[in-house]
Each structure stands twice: as C-alpha cells, then as structure tokens.
C-alpha cells in the first residue's frame, strides 16, 4: 500500500515511455491511467490508515549513499502531512490522466506525454514522502525536470521551448538556495535525516554560522528555494509562461501539485521554522505581497490560462503567509482545497479552449454558456470556491488563513491580513471577469469557431464533475480535521508548533466580523465585476484608458482582427494599466538585470574564451606540428654527404655524452 502509492506511477511511466511504441498509443495511455488509479487507491487507503487511524509509518527501501559521516537512504516517510499530499496528488493526478486521454486524443505522441505525466507524479510523490532532505531534493529536482519536459512538450513551438527553459532556469535559481540550505543543515546538525534534525533543533537554537544565527539562515535559504518552486514574488516569472504546456499539465503541475512543493517544504520543516522567527516574518511578508501582487495582474490579463495562473500565484501567496504566521496546518488545508478547485478551473479552461478551437483570449470568447453547460457549471463552482464564497471549499481554508493572519497580532500579520483582504476582493473580481467575458455577452469569436463550439467528451467531463464535487465538499468535510476540533489527533505531531505558538486556538477567538469580512469582500468583487462587464460594458475600456499613458493603444471590446493578418504583439499603453498588463515589468527588469548581462558574458566567453583560448590551444599546437614537419623535411636534402655528416655529428654527440656522463 505505502510502496504501491509511490511506485505505480513510475511503473506507468516506464510502461508508456519505454514500451509505448510496442504497446500502441491506446494501450499505453490506459496502462498509465490504470497505474495511476491503483496508486490513488493505495494513497486513499494510506490516508485512512495514517491520518484517520493515527498510525504513521516509515518504509525503508535501501541505502542510497554512505560517504564518510553522510549516510542517505531511500525511505518513505508516512505521517499525516505526507499522506495528505500523497492522497491529494494521486487522486488529482488520476483525474488529470483520465482527462488527458480525451484532451490529448489528437496529439501525435501521446505515449511520451503520459510517460512524462506519470514520471512527474512519481517525482512529486518521492518529494512528499522523503525521509531526509536529500531524497526530498531528488524529488524536487525530479519535478523540475518533469515540468521542463512537459512545458516544452510541444517542442516544435519556439515559445514552448523558451517557457520550458525559463521555468527550468528560474527554478535553478531557487534550487541553489535550497542546496545551500541543505549543506548548512548538514553542517549544523551533522545529518539531513528529519528524525535526527527535528529533535536537535532546540539544542542548536543558538548556533551561529558566519556571524548569523544558523537556524534563521537555514530557514531563509530553504524559503528562497521554496520561492523558486512555488513562484513567489521575485521568482514567479516562470509560472505564467509555463502555460505554454498542454492544459492538463498546467492543471497538474502549475496549479495542484508541483507549485505547492514549496508550501509543503515550509510545513515539513515546521520544527525548524518555529525557531526562526525572522525567517517566518520574511515568509509572511513575501507571501502576502505575492498574494496581492499576482491578484492585481490577474485583473487585466486576457489569456484565460494566464489569469488562472496568476490566481494560482496569488493563492500560493496565501499559503505562504499562513505558514509565516505559524499556522502551517491552515496553510496545508488551503493547499489541499486549492488543489481541487484549481485543477477544476484549469481543466474547465481546457474544456473551454477545446470547445473554442484552441482560442485562449477571453476577449474573443463570450456567449457560449448555453453551448457548453457542463463546463459552464463547473467553472462557476470552481470560481465560487476560489473566491471563498461560503460553504464552498475555498471559503473554509481562505477564511481560516485570514483569521490566522489577524490573530497573529503582529505587524507582519496585520500587513498580511490587509493584503489578503484586498487580494480576496481582486480574486473575486477577476474570477467573475473571466466567467462573464468567457461565457456571457455577445459571441465575439468568428462565425466559423462558434459553429464548432461543442461540449467535451465524457472522458473529460467525468474528471471535471468529480473535481467539482471536491471543490464543493472538501472544505466542509475536512475542515474539522485540518483546522478544527480534531486537528490535534489528525496531525499527530506531523506539524510542530512551538511552545509560544497558539495560533490555532487564537484564530478561533477573533472578533465576530473577521470571519465575515472575506465573504463580504468576495461578494463585493463579484458585484463590481458584474457592474463592469455585464451592466456597463464600456466602463472597463474607459477605465483602462484613464489609467494609461497612451489611451489610444488600449484595445476595445469586442476585438476586431485587423485587416489581413492578426496583430501579434500587443501594444503597451503605458501608465498604471500598462504597468499591470506588463506584469509590473518583472520580465523586462530581469531581462535587463540578468538575461542581457549573462548573454553578454556568454558571448564574451564564447568569442574570447572558447574560440580564441580553448580552440586556440589545439590550433596552435597543430600549426606548431606543421612547422615542425616542414623543418624536419628541410633537413632531408637528398645529398649523401649531408647524410653522412649527420651520422658523424650524431656519433660525436653520443661519444661526448658517454665520456662526460661517465
């Protein structure tokens, strides 16, 4: 059961990847789906066993390496935290595999896709069940690799390749910090096994490294690593671009699972983080800023998948600041519910894109809700959950986060609460902007596309419906366990809260109006979206023009394709609107700060270092050899006298040598 949950996906990946050609597309696809389903069954059983019956377990597999004082083994650590992740990942991954069977049915190499997808799931499971930091890092890098492969799955598209590389490189930046954190952990504790580190944290609380408190430093380094994977402010730039991958990939990796690895890491390292208050404060500030920042961008984007991507970024910010105020349980709870409704939203978006003949721009949609009713309904459910409307999943977790932030009674907590409230408002706003523009109003797509709008096949709708059920119920059902009265028994020590940390109790004792506030904000956001996009459709454009430096560049709805060919690059109207539209100019900034200098440096290395020095050495040696050859040939005059002379000279030389050397 424990082993099966992890290794069935690997089996599926191998079957599809290595034997796919031999098995045929259909068989290979279904083999991976069945493997995933088996894994999901194992995962659910494990969840019941470990979390509900409170029987954590560790399954040792084998020793990985044993070098000097460093011993690393492969083992599966099953406690409540990891089993929650295992169950969630296997379940959602199974649904996404199933969905992909329909979505990828027109693709040329589905076996490759399914192999990558299963490989990714396996790596994610390795990550969450790791029993030491090295194994966790293995999974960490593994999901990075799989996400690179999947984002660049359509490798004949230039933009997909760029996005894949961007994702990989930005992730590497985070990974460097992770590795530093890992090394510092080993330096401080002499071990990287969780079971050895966690009890020892208190003893090492006052250790210093290079004049800085070691625990704080580890905490910050690990958080920076988590930033890369979880797309937090600064290292978030890869996530929206990652939408170049097929939509199921976006759903699986960039919404439900991989990006939550950073949040998971924070929760996993809670025994250490609890002793690092400064690191936690940084986590809170960065998380809160991300939540607000991503939400502002989400309001003006026009690509349906990008909007959802920014909402993911924003929700991850929530999770981080929840962890930052010490409410790891709440953070993991939001991770759990978010996985369901975000996967639902992405797959729903995929269904829309599928229906609209691969159109992703919401300005070119509209008026299709009657044609794809099931998709429409599940998108509503997903957005209701995302906006935190009562009794949907998101309501429980998001409210809990905001309550925890309020209850923290600290400066950073207050900052997080304010950011969180604003973000909640914006979240609701952009969610309904998306809904209204996509489904309502007059059709803005061309005639040809509209004719082909059709509901997706059952193989895609079933996962959607199951996820919709999850988006409705998971909050209400699991809230008592994750954050409610059963929390203590449920978590069973998998997450550690310090002596002074009473946040879980404090969050239930906030003033009456605090739990209500997010809901009010959410409804206000919906109302504003309704006003702007349903009641007064001209308003958004006017607003956009008002906040632009060059209003004439703002494109009006409906978008009318330019004569002849369509305009490829969107003009930048400048001003506040342009600032948001261009995503706070992060890409431009990084391009200026890192990409271009790196390119210049690389060019220099290439032209001077490689072409002149490295190539120069063998070329120089070769020309020396040629010169030597010419010299050697010149001695060969063809005259016997010269030859005899050479012989005698040689003889004299040797005799001299002999007599001297004696």
């Amino acid at each position, binding site marked *: 059961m424990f082993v099966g949950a992890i290794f069935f996906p690997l089996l599926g990946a191998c079957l599809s990847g290595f034997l796919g050609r031999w098995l045929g597309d259909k068989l290979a696809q279904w083999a991976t789906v069945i493997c995933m389903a088996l894994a999901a069954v194992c995962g659910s059983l494990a969840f019941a066993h470990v979390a509900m019956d409170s029987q954590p377990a560790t399954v040792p597999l084998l020793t990985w390496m044993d070098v000097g004082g460093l011993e690393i083994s492969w083992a599966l650590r099953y406690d409540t935290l990891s089993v929650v992740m295992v169950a969630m990942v296997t379940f959602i991954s199974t649904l996404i595999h199933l969905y992909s069977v329909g979505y990828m049915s027109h693709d040329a190499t589905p076996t490759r896709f399914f192999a990558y997808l299963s490989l990714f799931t396996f790596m994610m499971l390795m990550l969450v069940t790791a029993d030491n930091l090295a194994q966790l890092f293995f999974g960490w890098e593994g999901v990075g690799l799989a996400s690179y492969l999947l984002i660049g799955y359509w490798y004949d598209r230039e933009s997909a390749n760029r996005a894949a590389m961007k994702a990989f490189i930005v992730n590497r930046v985070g990974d460097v910090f992770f590795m530093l954190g890992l090394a510092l952990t080993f330096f401080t504790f002499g071990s990287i096994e969780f079971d050895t580190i966690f009890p020892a944290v208190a003893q090492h609380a006052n250790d210093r490294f290079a004049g800085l408190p070691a625990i704080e430093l580890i905490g910050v380094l690990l958080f920076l690593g988590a930033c890369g994977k979880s797309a937090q402010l600064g290292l978030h730039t890869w996530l929206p671009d990652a939408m170049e991958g097929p939509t199921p990939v976006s759903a699986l990796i960039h919404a439900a699972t991989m990006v939550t690895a950073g949040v998971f890491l924070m929760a996993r390292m809670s025994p250490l983080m609890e002793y690092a208050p400064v690191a936690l404060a940084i986590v809170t500030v960065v998380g809160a800023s991300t939540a607000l920042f991503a939400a502002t961008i989400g309001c003006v984007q026009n690509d349906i998948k990008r909007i959802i991507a920014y909402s993911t970024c924003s929700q991850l910010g929530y999770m981080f600041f929840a962890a930052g105020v010490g409410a790891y349980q709440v953070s993991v709870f939001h991770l759990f519910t978010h996985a369901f409704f975000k996967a639902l939203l992405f797959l729903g978006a995929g269904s829309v894109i599928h229906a609209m003949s691969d159109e992703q721009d919401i300005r070119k949609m509209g008026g299709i809700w009657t044609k794809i009713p099931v998709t429409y309904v599940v998108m509503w459910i997903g957005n209701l959950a995302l906006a935190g409307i009562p009794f949907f999943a998101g309501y429980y977790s998001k409210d809990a986060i905001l309550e925890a932030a309020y209850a923290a009674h600290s400066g950073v907590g207050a900052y997080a609460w304010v950011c969180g409230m604003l973000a909640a408002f914006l979240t609701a706003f952009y969610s309904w902007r998306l809904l209204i523009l996509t489904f309502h109003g007059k059709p803005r797509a061309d005639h040809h596309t509209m004719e082909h709008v059709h509901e997706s096949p059952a193989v895609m709708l079933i996962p959607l419906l199951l996820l919709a059920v999850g988006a409705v119920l998971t909050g209400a059902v699991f809230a008592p366990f994750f954050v409610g009265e059963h929390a203590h028994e449920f978590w069973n020590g998998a997450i550690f809260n310090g002596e002074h940390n009473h946040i879980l109790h404090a969050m239930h004792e906030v003033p009456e109006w605090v739990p209500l506030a997010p809901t009010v904000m959410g409804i206000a956001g919906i109302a504003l979206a309704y006003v702007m996009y349903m009641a007064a459709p001209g308003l958004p454009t006017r607003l956009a023009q008002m906040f632009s430096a060059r209003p004439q560049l703002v494109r009006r709805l409906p978008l009318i394709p330019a004569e002849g060919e369509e305009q490829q690059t969107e003009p930048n109207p400048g001003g506040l609107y342009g600032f948001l539209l261009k995503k706070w100019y992060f890409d431009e900034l990084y391009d200026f700060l890192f990409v271009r200098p790196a390119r210049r440096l690389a060019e220099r290395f290439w032209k001077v270092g490689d072409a002149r020095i490295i190539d120069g050495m063998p070329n120089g040696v070769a020309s020396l050899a*040629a010169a030597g050859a010419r010299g050697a040939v010149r001695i060969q005059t*063809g005259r016997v006298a010269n030859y005899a002379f*050479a*012989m005698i000279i040689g003889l004299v030389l040797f005799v001299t040598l*002999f007599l001297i050397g004696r």
Partner: protein
Amino acid sequence: MSWTLALPELVLACSGLVLLLAGVIPKQETFFPITMGAIGALLVTAVLVLGQGEGTALGGHYVADAFSGFMKILALGAAALGLLLSIDFNEKEGLGRFEFPVLVLFASLGAMVMISANDLMALYLGLELLSLPLYVIAAFNRDNARSSEAGLKYFVLGALASGLLLYGTTLVYGFAGTTNFDRLADAFSAAQGVSAGVIVGVVFVIAGLAFKVSAVPFHMWTPDVYEGAPTPVTAYFASAPKVAAIALLTRVLLGPFGDLAAQWQQVILLISFGSMILGSFAAIGQINLKRLMAYSSIGHVGYALMGLAVGSDTGLRGLLFYMAIYVFMNVGAFAVLVAMRRQGRAVEQVEDLAGLARTDLGMALWMAAFMFSMAGIPPLAGFFSKLYVFLAAVQGGFWTLAVVGVLTSVVSAYYYLRVVKVMFFDQPAGALDRAPASLTIVMAGTGLFTLLFGLFPAPLLAAAQAAAAALLG
C-alpha cells in the same frame, strides 16, 4: 664442433646455392619457380629453427636460444612475405629475374647469422652478408635512375656505417682482448672500471647497428632509399633487416655490454626520443606513400627501442612483441602499396588512394585497418604493441619516455588517419587496377592478424616472454 646446431643456416645457404644453379641452367625465364623455391626454402628453414636445440657452436661464434628462434622466425616470415609481394610486381615491372629471390634468400641468411652471432666477428660477417644483397636489390631496377640512386646511396652510407661498426669492434677488442660475447661479459663484470676506449667502441657499434634499423640520427638514408627502391624491396627493407638489426642490438647491449647499461641506456634513450619525434613530425608533410612509410618505420623503431631503453624484462618483452606486430602490419600496408597500379603503371602518391573505398572497398578496408593499427587505435594489434612498451616504460619509471611516446603517437595518428580520410571521403581519382590474388592473400592474412590479434594475444606474448627470459637469463 657441434655444427648440427647451425643446421637451419646451413640448409638455407645450400638451398641458396642450389637455387642459383637451378636459375642459371634452364634456357627460359625461371623467376617464378625460383621464387617459389626460395619461399619454400625459407619456410623449411623456419621449421628447422622451430626444432632447433639450444647452445653455442662453431667455436663459440654461434648461439641458439629462444631469443634467436623468435627473431629468426620473424625474419624468415618477413622475407617469405616480401617475396610473395614481389612476384606480381616484378613481373609487371620487367624485373622478373631469378637473381632477386636468391639475393633475398642470402640476405635472410645474413639476418640469421646476425641474430645468432655470439662474437663480434660473426656479427660483422652476418651484417655484411645481409647488407651486400640489400645494396643490390635496392638498385634492382637498374634502368631506373631513382632506383640506382637509392642503391648507391644505401651502399655509400652503409659502407660508412660498416666502417663505424668495424672501428668500434677493433676498439673493444683492443681494450678487452676478446671478441667473444661471453668473455666480453666476463671482462666487463669485473670490478675494475671500464676504460674510455671500450665505451667509445660501444658507441661506434651502436651507431653501426642504429644505421641498419634507421634510427635517428642514422636514419637519413631511409626516405630516399625507400622511395627509390622497387616497392617490394622497400617492404622487405622495412621488415626483415630491421628485425635482425634490432635483435643484434639487443643481444649485444644486454649480453656482453649488459654491465655497462648505465652508459648505453642514455644513448638508446636519445635515439628512441629522436626517432619517435622525427618519425611522427616529418611524415606529416609527405605526399609519397613510400616516403611516408619510411618515416613511419623510423617512428616505429623509436617505440620499439623504448623497450630496450627500459632494459627490464617487461621492456624486452615489449620490444619483441612490438617487432612481431610491426612486421605483420607493415607487410600488410606494403601489400596495399605494391597493389597500387593504375592502368598497369605503379602509383605511389597519397592522392592516388582517393576514393578507394568506392572503387575497391576490400582493399580500402584492409588499408584502413593497417593505418588504424599503426596509429595504435584499440582494439587493433598496433594498440597492444604500443601498450606493452608504454607499460614497460611506466613500470620502469621512464615517465618522459612514455609521455613522449603517447604524444608522438597522437601526432602520427594525423598522417595515418589522413590516408584513411583520403580513401573514404575524397573524390575518386579513377579506379586502381584489381589487386592480384597473391597480394590479396597477403593483405587478408596480415589484416586478419591485425584485426583479431586482440582476441588471442597469449601465444605471441608467451613466446616473447620466453625469448626475453632466454636473453636476460
């Protein structure tokens, strides 16, 4: 007098005389039967060598042991293969005269005498017996100016080398009072210091022998003679005499002068360095294949002498091993050179091989095998031969020798691989004539040896080991 020990030499000498008579008496041209007879005589002699006992004979002038057996079989085999190469070539070039095989046969007799020499006099006798027929066959195409020039050059320089050798011999005799190897060894192992005269004598002897193996700086004749002489003669030059001279050099230096190793080692080291470096660099600019092979042979001698410079058991084994493999791949490569004819005319430029892979794939593949092997690329035979001498050098602590060896073989790989490149990637320069059966057989035989040697190295290694042990005692 246990003259029966020298039976192989006596048989070879007698059959040489008989063949000479048999060639003169009939009215018609007797080149082919005499050649066959000579090959037969060489093979019979080789069998006799195999069955030969051990010991000294003829008043201590003659010695037979495992070392001499190994080298003699090598020399006889090389001579037989050389004759096989010459049949077709000589007939087409109008050189089909019966004197040719007889001369080769007497040269081989000289080589055998050299290998078995146990006295400075016998050494000189054998050397001259080898050299005089070689002077003649170098100029065998006497109507060709280049061939005559080659013969003459070889003769003049050879005479000089012989003079040096003789002078060295007299010096040694004058200071040691004997010419017998065993007694020389006794004399030098005595505690009192060795006089300078002996040392100078040894250097002169080394010079004389180094001329025969065409080691730097006594190599100058090699490119000119190799280029000028008829190709089968060059093939013979590059194999049997080298084997004999290397054997003699080894026996002289490790036998009577073994106790002076500290002194002669430096000279051999320098010769080895010089040969490796010159052999690899000077060949780069060559466009004539025979000249290229001349420099290649200089380089190979350098590698082989590395084993002698080390002087140890493994070094000697590496040297013997190297010579054996060298003879086979060299004869194979020359078989290709001999077969190079376009419309009946012999051609010998590197470009003449252009596009050979498309016109005669079989020959191109064999040639590629020989070239790769000479460059020392695994798993071909040439790799193992280099491996064992480098191994010996490293084990003996001669790091610079091994490093220079490896570097120069990298350089030499350039010109060997250039031949392969020309054959396989250049535009064909017109097809070559079909190779006659005799040459194809030689190519295939030596080619298979080169290719497959890596699978069965044990017998040759064991033989080389036994020969080395016999010499070092």
